[in-house]
């Protein structure tokens, strides 16, 4: 069934189809319509879940951490400073290996206050141990929520589903609402191996020593460092799971098929514009325009930011002449975080493309098609070279 709804409602309908049973949230723009919709679905009896309106984002994730530890499928959503307020809990959820799913409706961070879109919120949380997926349109938001629960519960790592505030959250687009039975086939009920249960008492997240230590039966248990190594390795291995889930999802629902990089006119391109989120679709018009001018350029949207799909990036781009990385976030005093990651992924390749970096759209600054076209015209030249520092688009200095 096709419906026309906002991106936030697409996310809410995904959470309903995923049959999350504990939802906790605190209001923050532009996430609010998503959680309002969920509270409405629960209140109307259309969704069988506990909706818990907490007093802060820190508590929202605390509720999800505890509910997940007690064996329930948990969901929350936030934006910007709300995500930052969760920071300690983000690390806790990942360290405790809880398959929580959270929508991050991307918004710039104060100070100064902004309510408009950029990616600084989620990018600044890249090292919290969460998987980060980025959606480009409403259909992807809904589908990614379903895939995120499946992924999180398969690898026991929490997942953020990130999508652009306003550009996607508050705009209306048609998308297909999957059949609930088909979703159940794709996403079986949450059945964790361990959960809080008086019949089988466990003390979870206890103080752990630097070195390994035997338990009361003499079996060696990991130390803190082994536990961290396990999280890292499981994040790396989750890339195979992401690929498998994408294939299975396409078999059942007939959509998708691009687990890491969604390409547009990339095959015969010499140069590729790379970015995350809705901008990769915005760029498609620019690519068509430049193709008519004879510039062999394509566009690619990265769907997964953590774990970083370095092999997919190297395979897709190492034979290209140049990459132009557009980012709505910045590692202050250095460069765009995605730019640095892409350069690192290509470093081992002897014949690698040049990589350039543009920072744009911070705090909702309008991204003009003409500006994107000019940047690409400027960069898509054999004489271009890899830069150390980003250039800025739309900066009025």
């Amino acid at each position, binding site marked *: 069934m096709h419906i026309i709804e906002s991106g936030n409602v697409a996310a809410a309908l995904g959470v309903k189809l995923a049959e999350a*049973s*504990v939802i*906790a949230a605190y209001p923050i723009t532009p996430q609010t319509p998503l959680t309002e919709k969920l509270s409405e679905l629960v209140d109307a009896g259309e969704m069988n*879940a*506990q909706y*818990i*309106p*907490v*007093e*802060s984002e*820190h*508590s*929202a994730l*605390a*509720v*999800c*951490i*505890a*509910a*997940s*530890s*007690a*064996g*329930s499928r*948990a969901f929350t959503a936030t934006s910007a400073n709300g995500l930052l307020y969760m920071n*300690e*809990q983000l690390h*806790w959820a990942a360290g405790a290996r809880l398959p929580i799913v959270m929508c991050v409706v991307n918004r710039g961070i104060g100070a100064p206050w902004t309510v408009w879109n950029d990616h600084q919120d989620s990018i600044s949380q890249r090292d919290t141990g969460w998987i980060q997926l980025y959606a480009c349109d409403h259909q992807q938001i809904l589908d990614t929520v379903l895939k995120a629960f499946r992924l999180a519960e398969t690898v026991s790592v929490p997942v953020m589903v990130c999508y652009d505030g306003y550009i996607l959250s508050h705009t209306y687009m048609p998308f297909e609402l999957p059949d609930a039975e088909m979703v159940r086939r794709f996403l079986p009920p949450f059945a964790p191996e361990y959960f*809080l*249960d*008086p019949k*089988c*008492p*466990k*003390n*979870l*997240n*206890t*103080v*752990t*020593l630097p070195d390994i*230590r*035997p*338990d*009361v039966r003499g079996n060696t*248990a990991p130390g803190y460092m082994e536990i961290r190594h396990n999280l890292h390795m499981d994040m790396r291995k989750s890339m195979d799971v992401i690929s498998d889930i994408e294939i299975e999802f396409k078999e059942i629902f007939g959509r998708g098929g691009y687990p890491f990089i969604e390409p547009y006119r990339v095959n015969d391109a010499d140069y590729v514009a790379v970015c995350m989120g809705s901008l990769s679709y915005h760029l498609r018009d620019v690519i068509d325009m430049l193709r008519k001018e004879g510039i062999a350029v394509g566009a690619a949207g990265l769907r997964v930011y953590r774990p970083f799909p370095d092999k997919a990036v190297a395979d897709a781009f190492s034979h290209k002449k140049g990459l132009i990385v557009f980012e709505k976030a910045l590692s202050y005093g250095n460069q765009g975080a995605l730019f640095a990651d892409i350069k690192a992924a290509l470093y081992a390749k002897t014949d690698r493309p040049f990589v350039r970096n543009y920072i744009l759209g911070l705090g909702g600054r309008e991204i003009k098609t003409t500006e994107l076209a000019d940047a690409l015209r400027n960069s898509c030249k054999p004489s271009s070279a890899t830069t150390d520092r980003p250039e800025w688009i739309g900066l009025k200095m």
Partner: protein
Amino acid sequence: MTAKTTILNLTEEEFVHPGNRACSGCGLSIIYRTALKALGRDTILVVPPSCLTVLQGLYPIAATQLPCLNVTFASTAAAATGILGALRAQGREKTTVAAWAGDGGTSDIGIQALSGACERGENFIFFCYDNEAYMNTGVQRSGTTPQHVLTTTTPITGKAQRKKDVPAIMAAHGLDYIATASASYPIDLYDKTIKAKTFTGPRYLHIHTPCPAGWGFPTQLGVKIGRLAVETGLFDLYEIENGRFRLTGQSAKMLGKKRLPVGDYFKTQSRFKALTDAHIEEIQQEVDGKWEKYEKNGIS
């Protein structure tokens, strides 16, 4: 309660093992052991960083027999909320959810989540074991450290501010059951825990918990010192049941009787070394004034 509870008719089942990592003479060991007997096996615990985190043992060994979720410092009551949400979703509502936090984890960093959970009416019991400073991190002052007390962050002249009255803050939330207790009167705590279990919604127990290392007294004197706090009228045992306040146990017995002077309590602990005679006199007058109100209102 039908028969009077004594040490002989407490359940023999132990939920806290001997040989745990509490310091010798720790008041928390007494109350945790006793209250867990009252809570019973069908209980899930929530614990933020505190002395209790250490008492319960280091991975992969646990000193307790009940499932426990260790959570971040500020999130205790919110985590209890999440467990309750999951239990409702799974039809496991019969299980008791009990949070155990220290005074800092309750009155300072944990109070937002606690207030939120109480306002939402979450069905849990919150135990605050009040040893009147951040003991696990090395005796820093907290919101419930009494005035003039020496801590490692009030090291010379003592804490300038008064002790925060957390049970009164909880009472302002309109809870159906609030009680204070003391590690020196474990049977009273046991009975109050049993009683708390008969209520639904948020319930709050505030337990005065002597700490030899932080208060500066010999380890064998913990019970005596906790009793002195009550017998001098400084820390009162009471219940607020459906909004009605009444003194209980030893405090109720003291109505109409002469109390020990507060100085008897202060001289037992090195943390009170900064108290002057004038301070002690001032505190004595405050305590006398408080008890005058108890007597006048006929609270018992």
